[in-house]
């Protein structure tokens, strides 16, 4: 039983993740279609619902082309790094409060480590290698430029991301994600207490996941496909999967750090039967994450891409000072009001 529960948790987490990613692609195409007044995928299955599985199947059967000048080992290693890093970060993200199954208390988290948030930041920083190495190993100038851009961009935005997180940590007094969520009961959401930190974190999360308006590493008009120009078949699918998995992680992180996790102002005070509460909590959490995912897609199809120098200016001259300002604001709050 001791081994069984973590294994079950891992299996459930990964299958949910893969399912959400598959349908996230579908919804991205549908939402973009609505935004641009089109219909979107509607041929495969009812309302095009089988489009994404069909796409995955197609990628499986494609020929895997490796350029003859590429560094073969690193070329294959890079997508694996991207995907592994993206998947393993889920281990420390909780999806709901403790529940009881067959008389045993189960936490809805794969591994409850006491350095949770640092663990996520550490793995996010490892993820840079996937993009950088794929750019280098392809031996293609567009790929190399994409890889270099991605590493510069991610290092720059990691700073403001880390400093915004420090504001949350001061209020929660712990690095454990459970404690961070439980410090935001009722109206005490971090998004209300430290709005500047919330904004800098969201912008940095967009940059870290390489989504538009910050998708410079794969800017199509200038760099063909960026770091994954030379990738096809399953290796391309891995990059694709990693990108969407990173998007889900970013949404989960924003929810846990700033939007109160599974807490909602009026639900907490309401008296509900004990069995129903965990279910509602999980649903609240999922609803918040889904809204943020919609927000990611919404922004992607509404805002044009930044120029590279604008991106760097924004990162170093706007986001970093703003996140430092937020840190001072939180420190003053704690000093004067003892929250």
């Amino acid at each position, binding site marked *: 039983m001791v081994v069984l529960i973590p294994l079950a948790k891992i299996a459930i987490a990964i299958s949910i993740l893969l399912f959400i990613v598959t349908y996230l692609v579908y919804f991205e195409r549908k939402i973009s279609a609505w935004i641009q007044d089109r219909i979107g995928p509607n041929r495969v299955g009812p309302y095009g619902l089988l489009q994404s599985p069909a796409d995955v199947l197609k990628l499986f059967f494609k020929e895997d082309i490796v350029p003859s000048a590429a560094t073969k080992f690193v070329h294959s290693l890079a997508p694996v790094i991207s995907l592994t890093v993206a998947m393993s970060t889920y281990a420390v993200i909780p999806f709901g409060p403790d529940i009881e199954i067959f008389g045993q208390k189960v936490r809805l988290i794969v591994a409850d480590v006491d350095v949770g948030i640092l663990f996520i930041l*550490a793995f996010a920083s490892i993820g840079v290698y996937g993009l950088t190495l794929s750019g280098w190993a392809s031996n293609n100038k567009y790929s190399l430029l994409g890889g270099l851009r991605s*590493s510069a961009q991610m290092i720059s935005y990691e700073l403001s991301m880390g400093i915004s997180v420090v504001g949350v940590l001061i209020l929660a007094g712990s690095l454990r994600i459970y404690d961070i969520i439980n410090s935001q009961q009722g109206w005490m959401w971090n998004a209300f207490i430290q709005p500047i930190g919330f904004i800098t974190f969201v912008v940095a999360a967009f940059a870290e996941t390489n989504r538009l308006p910050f998708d410079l590493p794969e800017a199509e008009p200038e760099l063909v496909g960026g770091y994954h120009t030379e990738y096809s078949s399953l290796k391309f699918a891995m990059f694709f999967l990693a990108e969407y998995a990173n998007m889900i992680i970013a949404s989960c992180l924003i929810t846990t750090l700033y939007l109160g996790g599974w807490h909602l102002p009026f639900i907490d005070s309401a008296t509900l039967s004990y069995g129903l509460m965990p279910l509602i909590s999980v649903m609240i959490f999922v609803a918040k994450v889904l809204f943020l995912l919609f927000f990611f897609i919404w922004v992607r199809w509404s805002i044009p891409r930044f120029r590279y120098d604008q991106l760097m200016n924004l990162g170093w001259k706007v986001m970093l000072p703003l996140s430092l300002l937020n840190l001072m604001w939180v420190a003053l709050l704690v000093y004067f009001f003892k929250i």
Partner: protein
Amino acid sequence: MNIEIVAFAILATIGIASAILLVLQKNPVYSALLLILHFMALAGLYLLLNAQFIAVLQILVYAGAIMVLFVFVIMLLNLQNEQALVDNFNIRKIVSFILGVVLFLQFAVFFLVKAKNDIDIKKSPDSIDAGSIQNIGEALFTTYLIPFEIASFLLLVAIIGSIFLAKRKIE
């Protein structure tokens, strides 16, 4: 045969193998990758020693920040493969190799023979608490407050210095 010994053996093997291959490797990018692997193995060893915070910090700072800089610079300079170590066995390399081995033997003899009784101690039961963030944070902001401030100043100087060095073209 408990799991701790197995984990130690695997991590030590990975660490030593990646270190040796790093020195022998022709291509700097491969060397950098092996160094990342080496740091990961070290992070695992830190976990075995109940130092969770330092283990995560090792990945975050070394593997995530410092090595990204290395890889970035290697790609920026686009270095060609330099001559392999085995190609030209000159006298300097042989002497340095012998020196390194002698240094290692010296350490090993010291730890196994001379200082055997001093370091033959049981792991302290406090070790789990010693690695917790609370304890490290408390030590860092009370006993070691001034070194901490100096370290932050050092980092500031490093930022300014590296911008100055990398930006200016020396005439």
